[in-house]
């Protein structure tokens, strides 16, 4: 099958590749770039396990072809931490409230929560539910995920206050 040349930035690094047009973005990220933190759950856009940020917006990587991401900026769960071996405040909050069990939906939940906190640091419970409402979790019943996003928002508010020190 004919391959198409693409160039896209993933977690800040530009990748060039020749891909079959039918390869989905999630398969490209996982199989070609070996970024396996993004997961495949349903392949029809319902579960949200494959969520990534496309130019800052959360999207389903199973509903996009890799060729459609040509020239775009992608952030995966591996790109959320500020540096190697570190965690973002949201990732840390997920650990603090135990906002996961099996860890399979977690990447998508983090992407959804991260996108929300980019918009507001004072999300209501309803806004959090709305933000993660398109991501299915089978383990937690969502409550500890909501608590994690609330906790991260609280900590981010504190960090952003001039008098506060970085935790």
């Amino acid at each position: 099958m004919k391959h198409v040349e693409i160039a896209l930035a993933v977690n800040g690094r530009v990748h060039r590749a020749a891909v079959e047009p039918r390869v989905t973005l999630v398969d490209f990220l996982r199989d070609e770039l070996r970024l396996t933190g993004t997961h495949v759950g349903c392949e029809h856009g319902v579960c949200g396990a494959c969520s990534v940020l496309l130019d800052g917006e959360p999207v389903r990587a199973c509903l996009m072809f890799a060729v459609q991401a040509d020239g775009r900026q992608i952030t995966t769960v591996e790109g959320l931490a500020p540096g190697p071996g570190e965690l973002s405040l949201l990732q840390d909050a997920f650990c603090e409230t135990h906002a996961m069990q099996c860890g399979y939906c977690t990447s998508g939940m983090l992407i959804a929560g991260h996108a929300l906190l980019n918009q507001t640091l004072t999300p209501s419970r309803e806004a959090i539910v709305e933000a993660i409402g398109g991501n299915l979790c089978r383990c937690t019943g969502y409550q500890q995920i909501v608590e994690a996003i609330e906790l991260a928002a609280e900590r981010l508010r504190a960090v952003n206050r001039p008098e506060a020190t970085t935790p």
Partner: protein
Amino acid sequence: MTEAPSFRYIARKRRPKEDRRFVAGHGRFVADVALPGTKHVALVTSPHPNATIVSIDPSAAVGMPGVLAVLAGDELAAATLPLMVGVDTPNVRRYPLAVGRARYAGEWVAAVVADSRALAEDAAEQIHVTYEPLAFNTEPERALDPAAPLVHPEHGSNTLLHKTFVWGPVDDDFRAAAHRLAYRARWNRSSTVPIETFGVLARWDPGIDVLDVWASIQMPKYSDQIARALKLPGNAVRVHNDVDVGGSYGVKRGIKHSVLVGYLARKLGHPVRLIEDRLENMAGGDMQGPDRIFDVELAFEHDGRVRAMRMRALDNAGAYTGRAPLQLGKPITAIVGPYRINSVAYEAISVTTNRTPQEAVRGFGQGPTNFAIETGIDKIARFLDLDRHEVRRRNFIRHDEFPYRIPSGSEYDSGDYHAVQEKTIALARWPELIAKRDKLRAEGRLAGIGIASCLEPSGGNSAFEPLLNDKNDTTTWMEGVRVRIDALGAIAVVISTTSAGQGHETLAATVAGEILERDPDGIRVARADSLSALPTNSPVGSRMAIMMGGAVAEAARRLKAKLMAIAAHELAVAADRLAYDGGTISVQDAPEKTVAWDRLVHIAHRNFHRLPPGMEPGLEASYVMQVPTGRYLPTADGRVQIYPCYSFEFHIALIAIDRLTGKPHLHDYFIGHDCGTVINPDIVRGMTLGGIAHGIGAALYELFQVDAQGQPISQSFMDYLLPSAHEIPHVAMVEHHTPSPHTAFGQKGSGEAGYLGAPACVASAVNDALAPLGISIDSLPIRIRDLEAALSGGSPA
């Protein structure tokens, strides 16, 4: 009993060890395991619910680019033994690929192996199978009709299991009771539906004749089952347990996938993997759950006290036996729920139909049974016009009656059901909740409050196997671990199983840290592969807190005793004069005489000349734990102790239903929870909350349906509805801790109870909402369309 003993690490808030790798995107799931040269499987499935396979023509597929092989059922069946089943049905044979006949729509008929999954799918479309459709049946009651089509003609009937038990003077109790009430409760098919589908990767190593397997698995004796089916010695299969499992809750038992892929890997000389897509998972992945009709009769007094119960449970196992019939067995260990019911008759029937086979689902049959019992308790209250709490209060086993032996022979270990009920009522602020319901009603909504209690039998001995299968004499369901301290003084616990989110690494490290008084954060938990593992039965039956926790505790105690012996020898005092504090050992009345951790480690690893005579060098201890109370085969009259520990929960929920559309909305949810001593509070809370969400799904949304042509019509997340964050209310939780006398720290199991009680509670809420209209629905799930139909005067769809 609620005063928890003081622990150093147990029962304290501590971050689970596993979480960090998951939030960083560094989990290692089966689809993440990459072996060079891996080939990929796609499947050809039957479009018919019952059909003779006349011919399979692979010619158009075999020459396609990247295609290595096409495999059909005849070849695989000739090379393998049938897959293991749970009950005695030798003529219901099962192989990974259909042989001669396909018995459900979605059954695997052929497998294609190619360089990529996409190429394998392309080729699968070009395989031409000629079928001769046969009459089929998908209904459990019809399966019992002698005129119904036989799913397995060589078996002679559609009945896979039919057992009747009578425990106690049932007929006398029914005669003596003031009232009797009969009802039917229907639990339709749903499942656990993990977000990760099942997947397996296998590689044959020709240098050492070993089949290496990586799988998303939660399966007792998995490697043994693969070896048996592939006619390999047990030590020729090496299952790698260091694979994160993306959810299971019972169903990840992909033995047919594993035997298929194992055979292909050996035959082709390449690593081969099969990662189900969602369609394969839902139609042919064998992951659907109990599908059960209960006919129940209760005998009770004027005051609501239940004397006796007759229960007939008819379950639709689907097209093959598997372990499905055994899911009628576990409920026997809690057949009276938390109630003092004097006698019980239980008739368990499992039938085969042309539906997707059933697999183990969270609670192993206990959820449906609990729903059936709780439905009856609510009906008694309504019949006698008594308060639903009061009927439960009057029937609960009292805290001073434990240990309490129920008619079916199982002894409940401990509990305080009344206390948990009262705590939950207080948490829910009952008078305010009633006022809130009544306000919703006054506003024109249909509103109702649900109540349910439930038991979670935990730590099971799998004694339902000998109970339901005369040829099975299993009396152990052991779990083994090893604890070691290396020459640098670091501790590792070696466990022998995969995990699917239960936090076993946290459990093992916390318990080892507790006994050895060392920080659990510094304790490594490793997973032995099946060739280096100790005996295990995997995390089924809410058993790991009890069994793995118990095994780690004992192994760590043995290691600690060894340290004490070394110190006693070193200090030349008797061991009983020593005190152990955080890994440093001192003489009690001469605290200046001390041997520190590093010194003990050095002696054990380096100084044989300083060890007590006869002691093995090194620091390692193993322990294989037998299930507490699991000692005997069932008695001749069918009484048995299956589970040692019984957790308890009390659920209360407020629901409102839109009169026009039937749309339900859960406003509030409250739960009182008692699983004895909690090892890690966040983990227990999470599993309870998650179980409730799962139960809400089973109660209101989730259904595997087939149409009149026997075709599955719930094949995606568009038509099989998993609850999202929108559907799950905030859940308030109150803890109670009644220790179990049978376990290391008083702990009990906790992975299932939220799910076991929530369906009954939500159904109770719906029926309270519908009661003013004189409507009652005793069939789950109660979907929007069912409510809309009931409200518009029609019958539920």
